[in-house]
């Protein structure tokens, strides 16, 4: 098997209940047909606005949620619909790092118990004893192993996230789903945690699915990036291709929102309006209601993921021009050509 993780057509629909006796009155298409692969030791960034389905995708991959449709193949094994007992083996190879370090650690347990929990519930007895293993893990994530007996409230946010990472690594997984692991942290701490995860990823040959809502965080961590919008992947490809030549208008808008370290004046594309409701997504291309390039065809046909000359795959009828233009002019040109008040603003 070449890929460690292979996701095809993954779908999650949440029923909306209401009215008399909780009848089903609608369906939220949180994730609607997502395909991607992750290789052993590779890193994939899953990026998008809140509500685009990236967290739901991550939870389905970690099998904390039951997928409505599609297939998840992990290490050659179909894990889409495993029951709880069959999942036990999987839990030791696939772990999760959570977003909020203040809610992901049980306040009533010592750090030692928290980190040892995956070992205990799986009945794993490490060679030197559980305590030695936990201390080794604490050292691995840059914490003092003597802090074994302390409680989470005695640690700062960044230290707590290190504890969460140590817990995820306790069972030596081969894939880690990191659900916005730095979003809840101070910017100064974010870099430390990202660097720690990079070091661990290299040293332990871990594969990562890294969920984030901004492209800047993912840039330093992921080799491949998938951009999601309203339950679909709109662009997926190598980091360099996506950052240098974003082909989907949405990716371009996202990139323009991230501050640029190099100080080049980049035009900002401001998207108007909100993400449409996943209860009733727009026909055709889902981004068309906010897209400055949308034409009649976008409402009729849903664009498939197609490979563009720069290497990445894009779901757009009119991918951004592949000639490397000076950044920013596209938006100007386009907004000039279509006098619509909702279009991109400079």
């Amino acid at each position, binding site marked *: 098997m070449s890929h460690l993780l292979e996701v095809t057509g993954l779908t999650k629909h949440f029923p909306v209940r209401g009215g008399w006796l909780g009848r089903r009155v609608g369906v939220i298409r949180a994730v609607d047909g997502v395909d991607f692969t992750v290789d052993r030791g590779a890193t994939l960034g899953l990026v998008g606005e809140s509500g685009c389905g990236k967290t739901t995708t991550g939870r389905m991959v970690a099998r904390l949620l039951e997928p409505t449709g599609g297939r998840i193949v992990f290490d050659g094994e179909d894990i889409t619909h495993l029951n709880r007992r069959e999942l036990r083996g999987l*839990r030791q190879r696939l772990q999760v790092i959570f977003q909020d370090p203040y*809610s992901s650690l*049980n306040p*009533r347990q*010592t750090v030692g118990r928290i980190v040892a929990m995956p070992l205990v*519930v799986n009945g794993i007895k490490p060679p030197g004893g559980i305590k030695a293993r936990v201390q080794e893990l604490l050292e691995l994530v840059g914490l003092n192993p003597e802090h074994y007996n302390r*409680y989470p409230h005695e640690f*700062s946010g960044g230290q707590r996230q290190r504890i969460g990472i140590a817990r995820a690594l306790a069972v030596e997984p081969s894939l880690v789903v990191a659900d916005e692991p730095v979003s809840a942290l101070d910017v100064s701490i974010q870099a*430390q945690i990202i660097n720690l995860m990079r070091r661990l990823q290299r040293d332990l040959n871990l594969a990562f699915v890294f969920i984030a809502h901004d492209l800047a965080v993912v840039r330093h961590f992921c080799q491949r990036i998938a951009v999601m919008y309203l339950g679909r992947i709109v662009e997926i490809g190598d980091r360099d291709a996506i950052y240098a030549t974003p082909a989907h208008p949405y990716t371009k808008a996202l990139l323009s929102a991230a501050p640029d370290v190099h100080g080049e004046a980049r035009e900002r594309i401001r998207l108007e309006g909100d993400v449409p409701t996943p209860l009733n997504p727009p026909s055709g291309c889902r981004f068309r209601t906010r897209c400055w390039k949308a034409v009649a065809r976008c409402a009729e046909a849903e664009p498939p993921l197609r490979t563009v000359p720069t290497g990445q795959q894009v779901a757009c009828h009119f991918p951004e021009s592949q000639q490397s233009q000076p950044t920013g002019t596209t938006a100007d040109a386009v907004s000039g050509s279509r006098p619509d008040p909702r279009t991109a603003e400079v």
Partner: protein
Amino acid sequence: MRVMTAQTGVPPSIEPDPGATGEPATESAGAPERFVGRSPGQLAWLRLRRDPVAMVSAGLLIFFFLVALGAPLIERLYGVGPRDRFSELLDSRGFPLGYAGGISGDHWFGLTPGVGRDLFIHVVYGLRTSLFIATTSAVLTIVIGVVLGIIAGYLGGVIDAVINWIIDFTLAMPFFIFCMAAVPVVISRFFDPRDEVPPSFRMWLLIVVFALFNWTYTARLVRGQVLSLREREFVEAARAAGAGTGHILFRELLPNLAAPILVTLSLNLPTFITAEAALSFLNIGVVEPTPDLGRLIFDSTTYLRADPAYTLIPGTTLFLLVLAFNLFGDALRDALDPRSGR
């Protein structure tokens, strides 16, 4: 948030949450290796020990419990039993001789008018009855409430709906009217009107009635707590690590429920003590010959004008008992303040 010394192995000095501990961080400089982690429970205990109201009320409660537990011993040392009558110390109209209801070296709280029983030993045994009924019902209430609350909160769905419906139904029943109507009926179901009803049966009947009517508050509280805890990521982390439902309920959730459960327990006790006294006052609780504070007060009202000490002494005892429980319960809630639980 502080910048960490990550790879160097220098122990990052720990800042306790402001307010989480009432203690200054004494273990800062000099001896970094001796820092003992304190659990939220230990911190609450530290705060409780520093609260004078809590300590005084706790002392009073311990005293009351010791008196109740040691009632037979006190009886032996005191030399007077609850059934002994001292008619020779009453005047011709049945009132005790001497001041304040006949208080003397032999009868510390005086005698009851009419029958001539010793009031002190009656109060001691009355405390025993009150505390036994209140403690047993409170524990029973908590057990039923916690189990049903956890089930409703964690499982949700139809089970949650059914339990909620039962809670609403129970809450809609008027407690005292139900007791007045139902207790005599239940007793007549089990015993012939001519037979004497054993006192223990009446006590257990009260306990069951209290538990049946009051588990709902605990169940609601626990259900709400579980609903919010269930969404916390540490529960999800346990699931992601492969933990079973038992581990999640009892290892991850239950320890986080300890604080609200303890507070409910300590605040349930005074409620039951007053309710039991009220029922006995209404003559549907504990009856003769079981000594009881509520019935003592009821009996004393006949003699209120002639012998106010008879009302005052059991009344003050009951008041102190309930006050101590309430003050301690409040202090406990402050000490276990959920805001410091993070």
